[in-house]
């Protein structure tokens, strides 16, 4: 599905990462793999270290910490916020929405819309699409998009398919009506027939958590996980990404009448270095234009990975410079989405630690 948005802009991006850093070497004894093979895995996939929140930390802690940072530094005013969108797979409760909890704890005005969206790897794009649509309303001028996940709590430490790549984190993106006319091209596709390619099988209403679902079981590859843990069919996800993402990007650029060279950066979701390098090669764009350094430095925090890639690789340059960015998210759902946007004159673009 093709989408087009007019006269909207991103005016600030803040990434909030837990200060706690865990190294690959400190966990590899749990992987039921020889040391030599674990180190080969590390090299090939670009694993190195990841940020893991301390026990007891919730997504609202990260989001509130980041929002207070913006309020205290006069980068955002509470009464300007007309909508709070939270994209997460780590809600604090089944009910109420965590965005309402954040609104209440911060004392934001009542005259606003809060909403939670359950999405993951394409959660930054989906959050932006929702923000752009809300901004069509006369009374909505500024939307705060929160992406936050703490999926390390749902991944088995003995699962080398998922544990080395996962990271925790949050991001805050300010989306506003643009004073300058512009067009944002985007597209999105979904395939719910493959819903179980990335899934936490137990814990919802379909299959509630019980002592049985918490039992650790060994899979055919020697990984140990329970039904309460996240499970990913890595081969299927890899093949899906390689099959669907390149044509999606080709279509997006053709519709926007951009050639690949005119795009300054391809800021894609960050599952692992190998997958991103293969996408860059397939699209025939230089690997340095498609940063793949988030998993190795921070881990993949789902919908937070693209804002992290932007703030880590471009940072303060976005306050003075202008870049054409092609974003793409792909994964759980299955969902794949992309958009082409110019980022310039951001009020803030940085990473802070919680």
């Amino acid at each position, binding site marked *: 599905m093709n989408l087009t948005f007019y006269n909207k802009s991103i005016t600030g991006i803040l990434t909030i990462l837990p200060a706690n850093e865990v190294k690959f070497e400190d966990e590899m004894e749990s992987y039921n793999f020889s040391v030599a093979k674990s180190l080969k895995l590390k090299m090939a996939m670009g694993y190195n270290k990841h940020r893991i929140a301390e026990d007891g930390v919730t997504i609202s802690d990260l989001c509130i910490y980041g929002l207070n940072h913006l309020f205290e530094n006069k980068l955002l005013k509470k009464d300007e916020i007309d909508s709070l969108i939270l994209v997460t797979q780590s809600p604090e409760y089944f009910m109420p929405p965590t965005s309402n909890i954040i609104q209440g704890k911060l004392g934001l005005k009542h005259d606003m819309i809060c909403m939670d969206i359950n999405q993951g790897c394409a959660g930054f794009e989906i959050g932006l699409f929702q923000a752009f649509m809300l901004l069509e309303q006369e009374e909505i001028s500024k939307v705060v998009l929160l992406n936050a996940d703490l999926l390390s709590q749902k991944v088995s430490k003995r699962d080398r398919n998922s544990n080395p790549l996962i990271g925790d984190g949050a991001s805050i993106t300010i989306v506003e009506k643009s004073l300058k006319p512009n067009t944002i091209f985007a597209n999105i596709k979904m395939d719910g027939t493959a819903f179980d390619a990335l899934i936490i099988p137990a814990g919802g209403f379909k299959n509630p958590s019980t002592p049985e679902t918490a039992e650790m079981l060994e899979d055919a590859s020697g990984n140990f996980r329970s039904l309460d843990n996240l499970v990913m069919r890595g081969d299927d996800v890899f093949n899906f990404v*390689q099959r669907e993402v390149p044509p999606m990007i080709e279509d997006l650029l053709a519709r926007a009448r951009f050639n690949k060279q005119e795009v300054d950066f391809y800021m894609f979701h960050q599952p692992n270095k190998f997958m991103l390098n293969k996408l860059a*090669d397939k699209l025939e764009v230089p690997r340095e234009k498609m940063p793949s350094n988030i998993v190795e430095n921070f881990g993949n925090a789902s919908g937070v990975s693209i804002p992290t890639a932007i703030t880590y690789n471009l940072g303060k340059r976005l306050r003075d410079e202008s870049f054409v960015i092609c974003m793409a998210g792909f994964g759980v759902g299955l969902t794949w989405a992309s958009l082409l946007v110019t980022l310039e004159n951001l009020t803030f673009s940085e990473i802070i630690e919680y």
Partner: protein
Amino acid sequence: MKKQIINILQEIRPEFDFSQEINFIDEGMLDSFDIVSLVTTLDEFYGISIDGMDIIPDNFATIDSIRNLLITKGVKE
């Protein structure tokens, strides 16, 4: 090229004999992470980039299937 492929496989999984004419996947000699290591090594060794769509077990099941894949990428015998 066959000898080079066997040497590369032998480095990845030294405990197995890759000169045998058997299916490496069915026999459990290569798993998905081995295939990632193999692709990375073949890319570097031959100066190519194996297409992501070609990274399926069938293309790495035997010496001949790996050789055929490399030939489609322009690697000469």
